[in-house]
């Protein structure tokens, strides 16, 4: 055990996927095998790190032995472990899905291209994500979000189709602008504080340059998180990518910037309630607008993408409770909702991809006009919907419960109403495809019960199942989450 303890599992969570990406880029033909090997190793690192953290509290590594503020410190606390675990869980299953989506059995040059480039891009993305979750330095985070952004854009346009390219360019612009606002904020923070580590900056919170820096970061990260009204780039980008790419983009990539925002909020800036209220209102706008668009859209993947806008908005309600007595509960709820959304949305995109693959289209109105019913994929979609709506015993339910509890403890009933509205909206738009799955009187032929089952249904199904029952493990997740008190000691 002592030998294991001396290994830097923390740094390895970033390095393992990085070296895997290098190897998979060098040996394109072996990319899936290499990709899985490196994912497995990364998962092992995360597990070992989690064991360390659970046993002995937060792990901190001073890279190069210098220590902040001169050097860079990596840190894994409960919040980091939860995010890393979420990333690995979703990542592993989406990779399984990708194995089929880009399998060598499928014809076509485009598919060959996707098979070659999916793995290096995804492993580089993973490296950036893991790096963001363990970073404690704002400039280091800037570099990480650029790694994430470029890899994410690569994944967005992987299909090579024109609409994906256009959506990717729009995403690129939004993402670059977000990153540059962030960079300007880094500059202002250094101007004020002369250092970049979280702890050092926290001491300067409230000074004018830091306040402007925070405002810029808030906008930049909101842009990357697609928080209403800065969501304009998301639906097309997520809807036009290939299914595994959409799953990663919607499930994981958005969470990284949301996580950074959350981290800054509680650890560095601790802004006043007015900004919290603003973010909460933006979240409310997202819930309404995202839902309305999801109700109107004609395509299944667009519906799923718009639902992301709405769900992210709901999570952001937690920011409005940041300086109330319900803060800790609300933050816990927000993190649970993030995890729930990551798992469920990844499952949903994979399932939507499978449905489109089996039926040959993704028009919502025509889902019931065919005898082709990929029932397993549809079942996975429905299970994922349960979590997104927030019905028990899903993690989405647990998260929503805690969020509403936080709001109630704070006496802020308005956010309870928003959460309820979000739930009703999500029922309304998610029932559109579900009704399509279950309606039979317009199908031309008798509908077969077990039609269109394939081994590729397993990843979405398992993910959706995990999403649907993981609320029962909420208290364990929160137990891990609270290690190192990421949300601070609140009264």
């Amino acid at each position, binding site marked *: 055990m002592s030998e294991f303890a001396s290994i830097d599992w923390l740094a390895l969570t970033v390095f393992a996927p990085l070296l895997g990406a290098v190897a998979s880029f060098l040996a394109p033909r072996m990319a899936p095998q290499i990709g899985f090997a490196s994912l497995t190793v990364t998962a092992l690192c995360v597990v070992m790190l989690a064991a360390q953290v659970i046993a002995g509290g937060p792990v901190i590594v001073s890279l190069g032995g210098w220590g902040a503020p001169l050097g860079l410190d990596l840190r894994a606390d409960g919040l980091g472990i939860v995010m890393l675990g979420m990333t690995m869980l979703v990542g592993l299953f989406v990779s399984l899905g990708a194995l089929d989506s880009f399998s060598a059995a499928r014809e076509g040059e485009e598919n060959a291209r996707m098979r070659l480039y999916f793995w290096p891009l995804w492993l580089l993305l993973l490296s950036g994500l893991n790096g963001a979750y363990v970073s404690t330095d704002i*400039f280091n985070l*800037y*570099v990480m979000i*650029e790694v994430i*952004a*470029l890899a994410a*854009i*690569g994944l967005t*346009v992987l299909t090579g189709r*024109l609409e994906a*390219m*256009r959506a*990717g*360019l729009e995403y*690129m*612009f939004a993402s*670059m*602008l977000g*990153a*540059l*606002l962030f*960079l*300007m904020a*880094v*500059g*202002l923070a*250094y*101007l004020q504080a*002369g250092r970049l580590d979280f702890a050092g900056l926290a001491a300067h919170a409230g000074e*004018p340059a830091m306040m402007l820096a925070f405002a810029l970061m808030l906008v930049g990260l909101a842009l990357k998180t697609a928080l209403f009204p800065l969501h304009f780039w998301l639906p097309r980008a997520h809807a036009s990518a290939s299914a595994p790419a959409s799953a990663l983009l919607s499930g994981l990539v958005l969470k990284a910037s949301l996580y950074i925002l959350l981290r800054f909020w509680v650890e560095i800036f601790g802004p006043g309630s007015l900004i919290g209220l603003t973010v909460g209102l933006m979240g409310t706008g997202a819930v309404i607008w995202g839902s309305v668009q999801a109700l109107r859209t004609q395509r299944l993947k667009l519906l799923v993408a718009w639902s992301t806008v709405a769900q992210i908005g709901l999570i952001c309600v937690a920011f409005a409770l940041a300086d109330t007595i319900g803060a800790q509960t609300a933050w816990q709820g927000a993190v649970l909702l993030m995890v729930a959304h990551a798992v469920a949305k990844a499952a949903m995109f994979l399932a939507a991809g499978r449905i489109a693959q089996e039926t040959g289209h993704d028009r919502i109105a025509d889902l019931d006009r065919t005898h082709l019913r990929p029932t397993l994929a549809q079942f996975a979609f429905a299970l994922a919907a349960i979590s997104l709506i927030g019905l028990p015993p899903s993690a989405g339910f647990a998260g929503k419960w805690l969020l509403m509890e936080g709001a109630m403890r704070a006496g802020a009933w308005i956010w309870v109403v928003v959460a309820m509205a979000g739930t009703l909206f999500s029922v309304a738009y998610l029932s559109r495809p579900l009704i399509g799955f279950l309606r039979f009187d317009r199908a031309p032929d008798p509908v077969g019960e077990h039609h269109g089952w394939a081994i590729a249904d397993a990843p979405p199904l398992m993910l959706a199942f995990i999403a649907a029952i993981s609320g029962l493990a909420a208290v364990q997740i929160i137990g891990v989450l609270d290690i190192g008190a990421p949300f601070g000691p609140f009264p």
Partner: protein
Amino acid sequence: MNFDMNLDTGTIFGVAGMIVFGIGLFGALSVSDSLRRVLALKLCGVGASFILIVAAWRGPAMPADPVPHALVITGIVVMVSATAVALALIRRIHSLENGRDV
């Protein structure tokens, strides 16, 4: 707030950097042509770099703080990578729109 206007190199370029950032921001939000939008974003990047470099400045004939310099160098490389990807996208879109596949 203390607006003590001692006009030195740092102040001048700090303000200039802010203005360049603002110009870039305006361009990024307002321009429709993608190539020009890329340039507008680059202006933002340079504007932000100005602030970091000014933060490192310690007065005339004084050695500057090396850390922001390192950060800006990193930022420049990151920026060129992002620009290359954006430009490749623009070229690819143009090819596809004009029916050229290669």
